[in-house]
């Protein structure tokens, strides 16, 4: 099998994964929609689950399993199918990344297409890993959606032919620095989705809390989301935990990058645009962790910092690589 051939199989893997993820996404959406109680049910019954959700948000310990708080547990077959497909898609991405790497005889971490591919692979792998320990079926749609979007961008806009690396990229630090960077971005991405959901859930809980009967007025989608999502406090804590794992990894990325820069460019810190933005991301998430540890800062304002941090990550990936002049000009576009 020739090298270009293998790269084409890698692309085929990406396309197949996209098909699988599309179906998974639809299945996750069906599952979420199913979380809302039947519209035909009498008003009294309709109120029930929402009230339970509202109660648990106030701080009662041991809230019931999400979505299972009606008398008869709702069927989550769609979610089961979606999780299976997510795993399958994850395997396809792993295969695609491996074939891409084999086709160029190096780790597939050399240009934006490859970062996107490996980043998506990590997001799915981490999501599946979390799902083995906790019920995160509510999160599926909000993880697979961004993954699908990124893969679409990767295979169309960011696509670069498989080829060798620039001399400055030929180093073991490529594997160390870029793998960890991509992995922590994957974690930040999942945390970002959870943080957004936290804001949504807080908003829904507030709406729900207003005037007791508020839940009746809520649209079906809102009720579905409100029922399907864990309480805001849990979402907030989950996002924090993921960020707290990602931040040391990002610190490591920064240090490994500095060591590599010292070898390749002669100094460990050159204020290259990519370094600047990596530093900005680090500082913003450091501020987030500090804000979390400070009384007087609500979790919400701290979470806005986390959102700003993720905004900086997007700039670092999409804007810096393509538009800014610097030594990290390896987008291959």
């Amino acid at each position: 099998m020739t090298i270009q051939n293998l790269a084409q199989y890698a692309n085929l893997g990406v396309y197949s994964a996209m098909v699988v993820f599309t179906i998974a996404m639809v299945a996750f959406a069906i599952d979420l929609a199913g979380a809302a109680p039947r519209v035909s049910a009498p008003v009294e019954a309709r109120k029930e689950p929402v009230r339970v959700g509202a109660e648990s948000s106030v701080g009662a310990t041991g809230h019931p399993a999400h979505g299972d708080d009606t008398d008869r547990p709702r069927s989550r077959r769609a979610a089961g199918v979606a999780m299976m497909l997510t795993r399958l898609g994850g395997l396809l991405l792993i295969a695609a990344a491996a074939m891409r790497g084999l086709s160029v005889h190096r780790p597939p971490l050399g240009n934006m297409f490859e970062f996107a591919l490996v980043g998506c692979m990590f997001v799915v792998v981490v999501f599946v890993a979390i799902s083995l320990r906790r019920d995160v079926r509510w999160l599926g749609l909000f993880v697979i959606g961004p993954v699908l979007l990124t893969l679409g961008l990767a295979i169309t806009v960011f696509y670069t032919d498989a080829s060798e690396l620039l001399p400055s990229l030929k180093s073991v630090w490529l594997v160390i620095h870029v793998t960890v960077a991509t992995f922590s971005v994957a974690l930040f991405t999942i945390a970002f989705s959870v943080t957004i959901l936290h804001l949504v859930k807080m908003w829904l809980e507030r709406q729900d809390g207003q005037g007791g009967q508020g839940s009746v007025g809520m649209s079906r989608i809102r009720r579905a989301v409100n029922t399907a999502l864990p309480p805001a406090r849990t979402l907030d804590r989950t996002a924090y935990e993921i960020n707290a794992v990602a931040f040391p990894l990002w610190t490591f990325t920064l240090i490994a990058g500095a060591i590599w820069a010292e070898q390749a460019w002669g100094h460990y810190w050159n204020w290259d645009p990519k370094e600047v933005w990596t530093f900005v991301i680090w500082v913003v998430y450091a501020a987030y962790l500090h804000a979390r540890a400070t009384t007087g800062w609500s979790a919400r304002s701290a979470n806005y910092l986390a959102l700003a941090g993720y905004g900086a990550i997007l700039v670092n990936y999409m804007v810096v690589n393509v538009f800014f002049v610097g030594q990290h000009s390896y987008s291959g576009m």
Partner: protein
Amino acid sequence: MSHSRMDTRPDESDVTQPTLGALGMLRWAWRQLTSMRTALLLLLLLAIGAVPGSIWPQRNIDAGRVADYLAHHKSTGPWLDRLGFFDVYSSAWFAAIYLLLFVSLVGCVVPRSRLHWRAMRAQPPRAPRRLERLPEHGQTEVDRTPEEVLQVAREVLRSRHGLGTHCRVRFDGLALSAESGYLRETGNLVFHAALIVVIVAVAIGHLFGWRGDRILVTGKSFSNTISAYDTFDPGPWVDTDGLSPFTVAVDRLDVTFEEHAGGAQRGAPRDFTAYTRTQTSPDAPEVRQTLKVNGPLSFGGASVFLLGNGYAPVVTVRDASGRVLMREATPFLPQDANYTSVGAVKVSAASPKQLGFFGLFLPSAYIDKDAGPSSFFPDLSNPALALGVYEGELYPHGRSHLNDTATTEKMTQLKDAKGAPLRLLLRPGQRAELPGGRGSIAFDSVQRWAGLSIRYDPGKVLALGGAVAALAGLIASLMIRRRRVFVRVSSSETAGRSVVSVGGLAKGEDPRLGGTVEAVLSAIAERTGKTV
């Protein structure tokens, strides 16, 4: 949680405020500066302040692009320049942010270290009277006397069901307090102290470090003295006479470019390898070493990096009688990815007027009728020199250095027979006669040059050590749980039985605290033979 405050100042509400004297004002300012709120603000300012440096070109990275920008933005450029947007990382306002942050960091770390030192030696605090008010708590009744239960509780707290063998336990009547996870705060302090170390290391590198750049044509050598460098940029406290006397000779430079892939990847560099002979001092034995991108040579503290390369056409200039005025390889500087290179061949020995040949070297020449000559591939497939000829004074501003660039300011361009500017296009081996009996120029061959950057940074090891310590401290401070577990025992109404309450308190988020409290309670019950 009452312990999650990061700053050490008391609540403002507790402070009775008489009129502030000068000292009081200072103290107030210090408290403001070292408060968490200020630190957060400064962190955000630092993040925002760093951004312009990635948007606008920076002098310390690429002075040429800054000059370009200023030339194209006549109105906004000078203002941005005045505000330091082209020297962001050495500007006064950026320095103000990081210096304040540095002070704030010190002001946070020092008092907290003192507190933590005391806390580590102190006993855990007394158990609160009502454990059921704690965020995690539980209660049960067991079949032993309170004293017996207390002993069991102590064992349980020190076991894997409780806080582990390292926890500290305090007896207080019929109550126990245990605390673990002191390393969380230790890690936190190590992290912040290590950041101070990194900043100090950066300062050391700035003050005592230097960098020099040298373009070295293959076949030549250079020794580490200031005069040998094209540019030399020492820190303010560098002893420039005490540079270590190593020499580097580049015998050969192998360069490979992408020839197979299409699109933007075509012509991309794939490998640069310089074959060198080095000596650590003039008397030391000669060593053959290869120098690659990502593979610097090192001499004591200084490292030699291969950061650039290009072509140096070898040109011979003769006068009308055939006497050689100059025969030299002149480095031309690449301007694009295909190594269209500019340079000047300077003949200061020519008389009566000095001669200068200014123009392009093209490794793979392509002559377009309208756009003029350019190169279509970075490697040597069709090398050519395209030169204009000037005569006059090469160095109107004096000449102080080997590699001073010549200008055409005080020179006039030679014309051909039709009166148009004379343009020479030479391929290797070709020779051109200059008009008016000015002699001839021959393009003999092409050599490569290696762009060497020599760096010395005495702070880099310290910076790395600080960074690694910071990472370790960070992991400890985020992963270790600081917990307190309290046990209170009282006699039950039934004689010989006891009521055990367990409560837990954590610093920060601790989702597993509830599980620990439950585990402690059930382990106590199990070991005392609980009867329901």
